[in-house]
């Protein structure tokens, strides 16, 4: 395995050089070959431009043949779960992305049962993974667990609606929540600033959203600055746009209005780029948190339960949180997607995507 780089072993300058510092490169190559899996769930009321956003996020068309039902049909419908998978490749790195859509959420007059379907889907994925992990043949475990949930908040309200609060409270211990303010082109700058106070509301209700990890001290300044900027922009207010519009002599992705053009990828117009950067550079961290925190949570509860309910969930979570904190100080050796962070970071500036569409998993 290490035959390919004989030169790196014999380094005349450092006599005590063994060469295991090479390990990350090997891991890197292996993981690149294996490819990555990521599952993203989008939740929000209809008409918040979720599908447009997803399409523009990954520069694909995930929903080519979409039929939007009328209001009378919506009365009868319950929340559905639709998963579509896309394989994206960039510079040799393969990403198998699954987007889980939840049409019907928030449509009904009585939304009490809205989130039951979604929660059972998340639990099902955890269950399946647990089952595979405990099985005899563990070579090809497919990870369909939901790594991240984009929760779309309507820009039309004055903040969080009761449904938003109830839903987030129900899933914040199962999945990483990233709150996103949809259709941000409705908002003037002042209104956008005001909506950032959603963070206060989230804190008030003790909802745990995904927190970006602070940049480590050995990272370069740019990265630290970027992380700081990203942290300050939560919740991200986005505009999804898939149409190419001619503006100021060049073609941009945007929305054309009689009073101007909203550019999807202009950081002054909205936080789309920031959200995309965050997602890409922290993909690995999101997976890690899902594995270490949410999945472990589920697992311990499940194994303990085996039939009866567990009362002191909270104690478990606190314990796990403490353990995770302790682990952070040690180098992360057990995770195979180590250092992929760097590759993704380098790629975040210019995107070349070539995609192959695959259908429902």
């Amino acid at each position, binding site marked *: 395995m290490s035959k390919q780089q004989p030169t790196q072993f014999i380094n005349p300058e450092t006599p005590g050089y063994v060469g295991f510092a090479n390990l990350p490169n090997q891991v890197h190559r292996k993981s690149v070959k294996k490819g990555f899996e990521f599952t993203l769930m989008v939740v929000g009321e209809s008409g918040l431009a979720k599908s447009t956003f997803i399409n523009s996020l990954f520069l694909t068309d995930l929903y080519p043949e979409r039929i*939007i039902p*009328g209001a009378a049909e919506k009365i009868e419908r319950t929340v559905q779960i639709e998963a579509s998978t896309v394989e994206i490749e960039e510079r040799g790195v393969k990403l198998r992305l699954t987007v889980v859509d939840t049409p019907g959420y928030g449509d009904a*007059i009585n939304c009490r049962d809205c989130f039951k379907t979604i929660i059972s889907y998340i639990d099902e994925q955890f269950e399946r993974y647990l089952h595979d992990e405990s099985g005899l043949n563990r070579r090809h475990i497919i990870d369909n667990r939901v790594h991240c949930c984009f929760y779309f908040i309507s820009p039309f309200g004055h903040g969080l609606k009761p449904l938003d609060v109830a839903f987030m409270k129900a899933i914040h211990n199962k999945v990483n929540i990233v709150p996103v303010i949809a259709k941000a082109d409705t908002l003037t700058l002042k209104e956008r600033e005001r909506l950032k106070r959603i963070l206060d509301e989230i804190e008030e209700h003790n909802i745990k959203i995904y927190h970006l990890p602070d940049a480590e001290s050995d990272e370069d300044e740019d990265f630290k600055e970027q992380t700081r900027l990203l942290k300050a922009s939560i919740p991200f207010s986005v505009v999804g746009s898939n149409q190419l519009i001619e503006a100021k002599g060049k073609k941009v992705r945007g929305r054309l209005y009689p009073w101007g053009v909203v550019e999807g990828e202009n950081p002054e117009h909205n936080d789309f780029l920031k959200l995309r950067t965050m997602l890409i550079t922290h993909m690995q961290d999101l997976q890690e948190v899902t594995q270490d925190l949410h999945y472990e949570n589920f697992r311990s509860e499940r194994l303990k339960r085996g039939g009866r309910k567990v009362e002191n969930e909270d104690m478990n979570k606190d314990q796990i949180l403490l353990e995770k904190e302790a682990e952070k100080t040690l180098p992360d050796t057990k995770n195979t997607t180590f250092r992929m962070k760097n590759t993704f970071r380098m790629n975040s500036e210019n995107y070349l995507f070539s995609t192959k569409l695959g259908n429902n998993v």
Partner: protein
Amino acid sequence: MSKGLPETRTDTAMSELVPEPRPKPAVPMKPVSINSNLLGYIGIDTIIEQMRKKTMKTGFDFNIMVVGQSGLGKSTLVNTLFKSQVSRKASSWNREEKIPKTVEIKAIGHVIEEGGVKMKLTVIDTPGFGDQINNENCWEPIEKYINEQYEKFLKEEVNIARKKRIPDTRVHCCLYFISPTGHSLRPLDLEFMKHLSKVVNIIPVIAKADTMTLEEKSEFKQRVRKELEVNGIEFYPQKEFDEDLEDKTENDKIRQESMPFAVVGSDKEYQVNGKRVLGRKTPWGIIEVENLNHCEFALLRDFVIRTHLQDLKEVTHNIHYETYRAKRLNDNGGLPPGEGLLGTVLPPVPATPCPTAE
């Protein structure tokens, strides 16, 4: 000869009106008209001027209700419509101003004056509508309020000693705010309009229309119109109440092309091309509220205030109120509720004294 006259006290005339959901009110027979050529100028047309003077002196009432989820810009729109701060906005981020648990009805009255004409405007707000997790029957408090106003008016009307001018608190117009999802109506919108289009004039309005591009807007409007039609929702101006051909063609045009109006509201002014205009300032341009290329606010304003204001009041009085009244009187077996009974014998009006005293 006395057939059809309103003073007839036979119960049968009243009960015949009931069975259909919308009974036509009893109208007196049209007098036979003889066209006679005037031989000179009499001055009959001055009645219009007399009416105008009277209206200016007495002023008039107008009650407008706004219904829609919180944050759709209802208060801002009403302020923009009447160019004054008639509605207190809930956009101030007070901790105490949480979303109410049930639908509340808040009526705020103002007197505004323009060109010597006084209008007593009442804006009825409905905070809490559609904001809960469970919104079943959230239109009931609204329906109840509307019927209560009809009841109040009815009570005044059947009083023996009536006031010269009965205060009119009936809801003349209900602006229903549709959320600009771009897809279709929401189930709640349909349910609300189905229930309330029979008791009040509903004008559907697409809120915050600056979310949509021009194509999205026209597609959405078409879809909404079709959905309303398919579900049999009669919004104002209702087809069945068009009085003559002129009205019909005008209203048809509005119904089929302009409605529902896609509006943007704002109470802030900005400088555009040297003029001060009401608008919204965004990093990519200024959205002018009164510019027809940007949104249809001007159309809504003209429709509600400049052309159809009186008609809104008339339809409320002649159709919706009469429906309520007929139902109410019929429920009571022809007798109205409370004091002031129509069924009793009126005391004889003292006759003018004859020359020969009796």
